[in-house]
């Protein structure tokens, strides 16, 4: 594969070594890697280039080799879209068109992704009005359209859903997002600065640890900084606590959506109990301030290790009883089974990640395939289930809850001695490099790619939240379903709007 430069997870590549292919060769190389070698498109983005107009950069994940493959090509105003032959590119190419005005020719559905102002234009000018773009429609007798959102009936983030229905049956669902767009990637250019870590911690607030870890690993790679063992272990603990809190909360929310109130109320509370464990570590329930470039922002006291272990045992017992109740309830099971089913094939084509992929039987997990930090030394088994339905997505969560509980307990019981952080010297990021880091957040693969300029500042910072891949999966899972099953299908994915909209 001379068309690609290979780098490990958390690796750095001098920009001079980034392959620059012709547009045709770029397209052929990426398509071949995806279709023949099973590579996944972790990121595809455009970045302004000094010599040419823009550089189109593809970061592929080679799961079976545990390596990343990177390549690029220069584009001016248009290029032949990858999407017709590689559906996982659809969101990325819509973003490229929207941000930079580069047209991916032949893209089947080139409408704005986030309704964000194009880059390099004063923000107020030429901004598309949110949501105003044609939707895919079906016509025919008794076909009807259902529009939901942006403001939904619940304490959740805003987004618009458009269903094409015949009777109760949904034939097509289109997500129209962008309501949460706050300009995160634009603001990262020129960094890092005092705000950078706070963007990372709040770009998807329920994934504070996941994104802060990815960003810190980018800084460590570019700054040649090594995290002390204790810092690595604590980061792992924090990340699995984040997974526990969210998975437990999701099981409760799924129970609530089918009207099974006991598990809803117990899991809602237990989720808070787990957030409180993170607060013992750093004072904040979402882990703000816990992960910092070079390690962790705070150490754990010996007495707190004991407290955490005690409370973790309580969490384990409470969760087991609450979840058992849910899975034993025939009425809940009847709603979960065979609802919102995705095939492994669809899942592979759409490039889904995380729980959604593992629930289709695809053993994809960055912690195993691209081990980083503590996961190089402590492995967690990859939890999969074959059925691809709401039940599978719930059950994979339950299996992961059990694994994470074991992991956190083991790590806390054997924390390495020493410092938790080796603070980086200011302004020491290597210039003219590309760095890429994959992290397994609780929703799935988080991909960060940074490109530094001649003075070691971010010329470009690409963020890919797992939701970016998986929103399209939800749309497919709804095909042929009853519209009344949308809430549980949606909850079974539980995707981030702000992580998508940035």
């Amino acid at each position, binding site marked *: 594969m001379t068309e690609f430069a290979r780098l490990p997870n958390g690796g750095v590549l001098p920009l001079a070594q980034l392959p620059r292919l012709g547009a045709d060769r770029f397209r052929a190389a990426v398509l071949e890697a995806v279709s023949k070698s099973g590579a996944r498109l972790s990121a595809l983005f455009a970045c302004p280039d000094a010599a040419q107009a823009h550089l189109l950069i593809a970061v592929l994940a080679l799961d079976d080799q545990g390596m990343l493959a990177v390549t690029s090509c220069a584009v001016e105003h248009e290029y032949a879209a990858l999407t017709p032959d590689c559906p996982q590119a659809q969101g990325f190419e819509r973003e490229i068109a929207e941000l930079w005005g580069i047209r991916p020719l032949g893209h089947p559905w080139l409408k704005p992704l986030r309704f964000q102002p194009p880059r390099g234009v004063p923000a107020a000018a030429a901004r598309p009005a949110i949501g105003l773009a044609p939707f895919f429609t079906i016509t025919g007798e008794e076909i009807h359209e259902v529009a939901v959102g942006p*403001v939904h009936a619940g304490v959740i983030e805003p987004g618009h859903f458009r269903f094409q229905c015949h009777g109760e049956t949904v034939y097509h669902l289109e997500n129209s997002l962008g*309501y949460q767009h706050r*300009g995160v990637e634009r603001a990262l250019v020129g960094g890092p600065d*005092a705000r950078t870590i*706070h963007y990372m911690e709040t770009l998807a607030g329920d994934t504070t640890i996941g994104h802060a870890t990815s960003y810190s690993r980018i800084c460590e790679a570019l700054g040649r900084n090594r995290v002390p063992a204790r810092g690595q272990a604590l980061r792992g603990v924090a990340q699995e606590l984040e997974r526990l809190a969210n998975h437990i909360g999701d099981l409760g929310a799924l129970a609530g959506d089918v009207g099974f109130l006991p598990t809803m109320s*117990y899991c*809602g509370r237990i989720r808070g109990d787990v957030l409180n464990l993170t607060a013992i570590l750093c004072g904040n*329930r979402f882990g703000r301030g816990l992960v910092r470039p070079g390690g962790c922002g705070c150490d754990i006291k010996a007495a707190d290790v004991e407290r955490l272990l005690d409370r973790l045992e309580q969490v384990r017992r409470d969760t087991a*009883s609450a979840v058992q109740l849910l899975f034993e309830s025939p009425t809940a099971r009847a709603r979960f089974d065979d609802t919102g089913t995705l095939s492994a094939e669809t899942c592979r084509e759409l490039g889904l990640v995380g729980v959604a992929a593992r629930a289709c039987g695809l053993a994809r997990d960055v912690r195993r395939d691209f081990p980083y930090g503590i996961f190089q030394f402590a492995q967690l088994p990859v939890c999969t289930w074959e059925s691809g339905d709401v039940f599978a997505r719930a059950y994979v969560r339950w299996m992961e809850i059990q694994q994470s509980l074991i992991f956190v307990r083991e790590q806390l019981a054997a924390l390495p001695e020493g410092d938790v952080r080796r603070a980086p010297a200011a302004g020491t990021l290597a210039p003219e490099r590309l760095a890429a880091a994959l992290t397994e957040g609780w929703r799935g693969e988080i991909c960060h790619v940074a490109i530094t300029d001649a003075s070691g500042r971010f010329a470009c910072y690409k963020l890919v939240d797992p939701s970016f891949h998986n929103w399209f999966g939800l749309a497919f899972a709804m095909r042929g379903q009853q519209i009344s099953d949308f809430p549980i299908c949606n909850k079974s994915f539980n995707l981030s709007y702000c992580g998508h909209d940035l």
Partner: protein
Amino acid sequence: MWSIIKARWRQGYRTAPYPARPPALPDRFRGRPELTAGAPAAAFVPAAAACPTGAFTASAGAPPALDLGLCLFCGACAAACPAAVNFTSEHRLAARHPENLRLTPGCKPPRAAPAENSLRRLFGRSLRLRQVCAGGCGACEADSNVLGVPTFDMGRFGIQFVASPRHADGLLVTGPVPENMRLALRKTYDAVPEPKVVIAVGACAIGGGPYRDHPEVHNGAAAVIPVDLFIPGCPPHPYTILDGLLRFLGRIP
């Protein structure tokens, strides 16, 4: 059936004895910061330089001040000047007016005053809120939503989140209000019947938080609709939110 009853018995009674007793907060909880009285003005300058949002202002000439509404409670200021700034465990942070969010050396801002009598008569024992997330990251939303779980059980104070603005007495807004949410927020507000209240929860909804002055956002809810109560934090602790709501309703002194 029996397994449900058994599990119910096992899970026990979990509602915290609040407000009768003070809430249990983590040891490392960063509550209201305090600027040391009598410290020389120059001592505060590095704190202001470390602040990511501009919440902390200090220069050689002007007296230092910290705007709780913009503060992320990240602790960078205290790390830069431990002698000039420290964090207390005070979780009661809500304010009715933005000027009451300004901290200066030695000052203790007043606790939030209750709503006017006419509103208290209507909402004091029953407040239905529609939550609108406008660019929020999910943390303020989660710490608001969690007030419904048995630990906090805000239902016992008559407070509840409802699905429709038509059924609501007011809005609880989170997030910096992106331009892409401005119209939706405005329409939701208009759909709430009069009289209505608006509560801004979190640094983003008060002043934009980490997204302050981004051209994509409006620096919080007050730019679009009138706000009656400000609850600082990133995110505020659930008890900070509950305290703010109960004070507003005149339910705790």
